[in-house]
């Protein structure tokens, strides 16, 4: 239930004021000045204007945050799951009470369309908070019993200890919640490091949570991946690193975590195939594909980006997709009419622009293709590319922008081969009315998520797993929160 709705001007005013209050890291229950004198500039991607600064935290800051989390961990782990759940539900209620403030920070910081955040994303975040809040109350384990003669075995599921969460800039708040809430619910304490470009919704979250959770249970360290992220990932007192971001950064996090012999859960890039068979219900398929590719300006690791179409309907799909893309409105994130906001940063705009600038000769730009500098914002329009091959970079590599490539397939085997012909394995979809095709595809497709006749819909109670280079382990759902636990086997001799 939103509190008083803020206008765009009020949102910008609030965000600017809030930014001035974030002067340090949140450690041991309070805002703590960084030991580093460096800071990171944060920009509004809709305008290119400077929003504020956060600390470029040092290794010392990371150490302090980890020490605080470590000190709080045993007491938090001994707090009954029901009490932890109650506390996390109270945090959800506090965020709900600051709904419009959160909308403002997320939209301005990440460039997300305000109507989307208000109607879908923030309600989804609140649902995720409430879902994860009870994670510690329903954990499964193998049943206890006398498996060996004369010995009773029981299985405990315990928190791992201190969790480091490193979150990306595409869903700053949702990703912070997806790491913090399950980790805390099952009894870990957390140090979260938000992406450099999107710190503020996480800042408000930890501030609100700080009123409810014991000191040290949830800490935030701002900064770069290279310094703060690296220090947290390899820290000997950290038990698990949960990272969402690019493959390249993930590899670095994984190496750092390996150095500290700790578990790393990785949700990395994606490059989702979308198979469209000739027997698909085309209008609804095209609606889902357009929405699935343009949501969050395509900065979505499950984005419907590689559209692979049965030859006979190729032209219809290209024309239909173009028609739908043209109904999307690119603009300022705070304009309620906007459905495609800016890209998140100048750097991301440069990356997408560069990829579109190096298309193969065979490729043809059917729609869009160039950035749209507009009042200093990082805008890029919906773009459709045809004629690119499986091995061309524009098809083979993740773009992370509002860009579709459309390829052809000849038969079911060719479709599956093209879909699977990638190192990524996060998500995929199949549009067909044939139940046999749909059922076979769910087994054949080598991706953690397979949608049949839809794309991009998900919820916190459903698992997201990256296969191949798309990651390690699972986020969300029971499988996801069990990543933050360890299994302890108790064997009691019965002297018989």
């Amino acid at each position: 239930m939103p509190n008083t709705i803020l206008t765009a001007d009020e949102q910008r005013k609030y965000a600017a004021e809030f930014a001035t209050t974030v002067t340090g890291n949140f450690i041991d229950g309070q805002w703590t000045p960084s030991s580093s004198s460096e800071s990171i500039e944060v920009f509004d991607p809709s305008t290119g204007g400077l929003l504020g600064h956060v600390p470029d935290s040092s290794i010392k800051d990371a150490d302090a945050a980890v020490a605080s989390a470590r000190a709080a961990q045993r007491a938090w782990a001994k707090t009954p799951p029901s009490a932890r759940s109650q506390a996390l539900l109270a945090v959800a209620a506090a965020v709900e009470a600051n709904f419009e403030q959160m909308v403002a920070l997320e939209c301005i910081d990440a460039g997300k369309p305000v109507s989307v955040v208000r109607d879908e994303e923030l309600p989804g975040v609140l649902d995720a908070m409430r879902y994860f809040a009870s994670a510690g109350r329903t954990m499964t384990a193998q049943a206890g019993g006398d498996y060996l003669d004369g010995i009773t075995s029981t299985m405990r599921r315990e928190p791992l200890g201190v969790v480091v969460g490193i979150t990306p800039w595409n869903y700053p708040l949702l990703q912070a919640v997806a790491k913090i809430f399950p980790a805390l619910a099952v009894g870990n304490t957390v140090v979260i490091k938000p992406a450099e470009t999107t710190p503020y919704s996480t800042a408000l979250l930890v501030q609100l949570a700080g009123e409810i959770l014991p000191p040290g249970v949830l800490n935030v360290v701002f900064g770069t991946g290279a310094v703060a992220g690296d220090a947290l990932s390899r820290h000997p007192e950290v038990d698990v690193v949960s990272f969402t971001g690019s493959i390249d950064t993930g590899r670095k996090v994984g190496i750092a975590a390996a150095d500290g012999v700790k578990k790393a859960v990785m949700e990395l890039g994606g490059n989702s195939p979308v198979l469209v068979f000739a027997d698909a219900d085309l209008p609804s398929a095209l609606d889902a594909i357009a929405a699935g590719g343009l949501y969050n300006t395509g900065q979505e690791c499950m984005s419907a980006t590689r559209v692979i179409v049965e030859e006979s309907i190729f032209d219809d799909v290209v024309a239909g997709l173009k028609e739908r893309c043209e109904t999307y409105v690119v603009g300022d994130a705070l304009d309620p009419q906007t459905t495609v906001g800016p890209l998140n940063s100048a750097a991301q705009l440069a990356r997408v622009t560069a990829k579109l600038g190096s298309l193969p000769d065979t490729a043809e730009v059917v729609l869009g293709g160039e950035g749209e500098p507009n009042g200093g914002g990082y805008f890029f329009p919906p773009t459709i590319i045809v004629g690119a091959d499986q091995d061309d970079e524009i098809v083979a590599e993740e773009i992370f922008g509002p860009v579709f490539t459309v390829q052809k397939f000849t038969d079911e085997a060719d479709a599956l081969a093209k879909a699977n012909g990638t190192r990524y394995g996060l998500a995929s979809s199949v549009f067909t009315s044939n139940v046999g095709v749909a059922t076979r595809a769910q087994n054949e497709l080598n991706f953690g998520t397979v949608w049949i006749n839809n794309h991009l819909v998900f919820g916190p109670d459903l698992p997201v797993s990256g296969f191949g280079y798309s990651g390690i382990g699972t986020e969300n759902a029971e499988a996801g929160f069990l990543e933050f636990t360890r299994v302890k086997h108790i064997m009691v001799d019965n002297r018989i």
Partner: protein
Amino acid sequence: MAGAAIFEAQFINGSRSQGGSDETVEVLNPATGEPVARGNASSEQDVDDAVAAANAAFGEWSRTTPAERSQIMHRWAVELETIADDLAAAETEQAGKPIKLSTEFDVPGSIDNVAFFAGAARHLEGKATAEYSGDHTSSLRREPIGVIGSIAPWNYPLQMAAWKILPAVAAGNSIVLKPAEITPLTSLMFAEAATRAGMPDGVINVVTGAGRSVGVALTTHPTVSMVSFTGSTPVGRSIAAAAAGKRLHLELGGKAPFVVFDDADLEAAANGAVAGALINTGQDCTAATRAYVQRPLYNQFVGAVADLMATVRLGDTRDQSTDQGPLVSQRQQQHVAGFVTRAVEDGAKVVRGGSIPGGPLERGYYYEPTLIVDAAQDSEVVQDEIFGPVLVVLPFDADDEGLALANDTPFGLAASAWSRDVYRAQRASREIAAGCVWINDHIPIISEMPHGGYKQSGYGKDMSAYSLDEYTNVKHVMTDITGVARKRWQRTIFGDRDA
């Protein structure tokens, strides 16, 4: 709720109404015998209407997402928080519970149940989808059953309403609940709070009246797909017979043993026995009823329990200092008194209590904390459920004997073992046939863990994710992936003939 207010004893399709029966439902305050509320019982037609409302609501409710159901239930928990004091007062007034118990146990426990099921129903257990046959993809669905008819007892009216309603509706069923006719008030408040939280009309319905009329109408109703009952074993048996063909969930009586080995912490065991026997005036199906104490500790244990029982304060249930309230009804008071009288006639000895207190408590249905020794193992007072503040203590010699005596009962709901020794503790937890075995404690329950019986104590679990299994069906969906017209297995019919 002072005086005999007229109240509407049913809640059907989202609103309270007066029952259509000529029979009266009268709620008395067991502490005073004074009427609290009076209304008309539900008629057979009312039961029909309630079941029809539940059936009409089922389709849409069963198709809501777990997230949507969860959201309503979280709001419901918040609603209940706001009326927690009223719920506690009503529970105390209708059931005779000391206000301490209502405030600290019944009400917060029930609210926690709501929060628990709001979360638990979002990921139900299932086996993995795979091509087990090679030619098909097999996947599982867990689906709600339909309209649930539930009958709840009078000992924990609010908690029992919660245990019945929550897993059922969290899993997508609709329900018609019949609380005990003498304690309907908090069940009605509970259901009304759900409606305020956004629960669609008809998902939760409450009818009130006697078991023989309203209960029978509900449990035999053809539209009711599952019957869930908590109450006595004899009634459970008749319900099971009447509801044959429907899915059943029965939480019946108990006669919990309390086994004290000679190395136990005597003080802890004595405290545990008195609290475990007297909680809710002993009207608790897991109450400690049969203490078996190893010979070396026996005399000391009996003495300590008698002394502790003497400190238990009976009194006004609204008073924070009251430890033990009355029994729920005069009938129950006579029932308990009868057990004690017959035990004495059979040769048992009353060490403490054993009578109805006089003075200002006389108008209520009080009964003294009672300690009985020297009863025979096969006597009624040891074998049958008393449901009152009566503890029988018996000695044993060898460990084997203590455990055998503990299991010498038709019941199997709960038990406890008291020992400092890990081997004894493990052995007791392994060998006692009951749905719950406590080690060095007796009584605590928790939303995350199941409650339910072995043997004549019934079957099916309340609370915990296991209760969601009770209220769901598992469907196997097997989809051909070969696409061929003649399947391999059809050789059994067609032999080698070509298609």
